[in-house]
């Protein structure tokens, strides 16, 4: 296909905006339309559960672009409008309200929508955390009453960060998760146990291995919950952070493959002229030889950049080493690669109980991930092991040091 002259991007957050910016910096001078259902101009999400929730930053600081930079994009910006359908044969995006927008090339960047708990979200005091409006509403509720009792349902990275922010406000926090340790799905049992210790040390009451059975209310406001182990818990504020699902509802009937996200080939192409980027995209990552869908900030940027190049005809596979970080209390946790549940672990730097360390994850004889806990410089240097898919045996106790001065305390499993 020749270079498109009319590109439409749906989803105006980091992936959508980055695709637009990259198209322009790469010299695309055709028509460009950016459609996003949020009323705000695009903003950065990671600070929502950190500085915005804690109240140390105000929303102005998280804008992804100034208004001047947005107008310099020379794009039709349809903010506050939602796409409701896609006709790939006619190459049209249908908007809520019936209008439609035609395209030569389409970039789908609609991200994910947080999962909710049945029978809870009509109550005041019960919150999700995905958008700026969510974060501001939660922050206001956390400040409403000194000493408020906060229940965080779900101990993934979002719930963990929300709990840390609430503790910073000196509130009484309980974290509830059906899994035995927090962040287990992300990092496996051993590191997840350390995250659990971190929360306990900071005064969070951990209720792992239990779920929520029902909510109690008074006058339309939540007052507490009952857990599946029969515990009754008072709560003034509840944060529900139980994962998210790709925002693909609007693509039903479009003929695109929709399973866990928009299914794409290794170049992030879902159909002729249709691409996906960011949290919504599932694609085959040739570096790891498997399909993945990531909900990571850096991936949204990198994938959108790759997609923009491919829209312009480069047709290159997108095969990155994923990167992810989270901040909780004084712990800055960063990770490169993938973290399969049955991976082996080896300490490459520092000590697990020492507050500073880097561990490698081994899977099928290769290093597939490295994770750093308050060790950003060391971690960056060890990233290469994942890039090289270094043989696992080469980093286990052996004379040939992978890098000088490493302290290796052998495999933990």
């Amino acid at each position: 296909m020749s270079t498109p002259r009319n590109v439409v991007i749906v989803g105006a957050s980091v992936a959508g905006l980055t695709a637009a910016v990259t198209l322009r910096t790469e010299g695309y001078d055709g028509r460009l339309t950016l459609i996003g259902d949020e009323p705000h101009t695009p903003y950065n999400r990671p600070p929502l559960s950190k500085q915005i929730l804690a109240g140390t930053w105000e929303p102005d600081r998280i804008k992804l672009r100034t208004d001047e930079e947005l107008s310099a994009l020379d794009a039709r910006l349809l903010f506050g409008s939602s796409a409701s359908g896609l006709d790939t044969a006619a190459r049209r995006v249908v908007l809520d309200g019936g209008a439609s927008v035609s395209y030569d090339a389409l970039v789908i960047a609609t991200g994910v929508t947080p999962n909710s708990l049945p029978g809870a979200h009509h109550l005041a005091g019960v919150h999700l955390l995905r958008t700026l409006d969510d974060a501001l509403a939660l922050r206001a509720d956390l400040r409403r009453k000194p000493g408020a009792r906060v229940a965080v349902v779900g101990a993934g990275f979002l719930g963990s960060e929300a709990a840390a922010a609430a503790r910073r406000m000196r509130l009484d926090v309980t974290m509830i998760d059906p899994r035995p340790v927090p962040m287990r799905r992300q990092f496996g049992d051993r590191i997840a146990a350390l995250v659990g210790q971190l929360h306990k040390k900071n005064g969070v009451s951990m209720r792992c291995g239990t779920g929520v059975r029902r909510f109690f209310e008074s006058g339309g406001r939540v007052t507490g919950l009952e857990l599946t182990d029969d515990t009754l818990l008072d709560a003034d504020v509840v944060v529900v952070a139980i994962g998210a699902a790709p925002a693909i509802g609007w693509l039903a009937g479009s003929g695109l493959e929709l399973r866990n996200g928009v299914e794409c080939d290794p170049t992030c192409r879902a159909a002729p002229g249709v691409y996906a980027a960011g949290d919504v995209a599932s694609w085959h990552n040739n570096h790891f030889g498997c399909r993945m869908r990531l909900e990571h900030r850096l991936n949204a940027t990198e994938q959108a950049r790759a997609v923009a190049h491919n829209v312009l005809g480069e047709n290159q596979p997108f095969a990155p080493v994923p990167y992810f970080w989270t901040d909780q209390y004084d712990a800055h946790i960063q990770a490169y690669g993938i973290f399969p549940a049955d991976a082996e672990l080896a300490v490459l730097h520092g000590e697990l109980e020492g507050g500073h360390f880097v561990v490698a994850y081994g899977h099928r004889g290769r290093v597939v991930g490295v994770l750093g806990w308050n060790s950003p410089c060391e971690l960056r240097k060890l990233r290469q092991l994942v890039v090289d898919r270094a043989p696992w045996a080469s980093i286990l106790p052996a004379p040939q040091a992978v890098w000088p001065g490493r302290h290796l305390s052998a495999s933990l499993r």
Partner: protein
Amino acid sequence: MQVTLHQDKCVASGQCVLAAQDVFDQRDKDGLAVLLDDRPPAELHDDVRHAAAVCPALAIALADS
């Protein structure tokens, strides 16, 4: 090219160092980025643009000069 680094936004991801190690480094203590050269030579401009584009905290600003 004039490079500005807003260290108060930096999340220590090290992407800038991976993209342009002659222009950026990370402090040992906490990994926050430091600027080694605020007027890098022309041959590094592409790397620096890449660094600014991928920085997940939008902590790097570029201006023509």
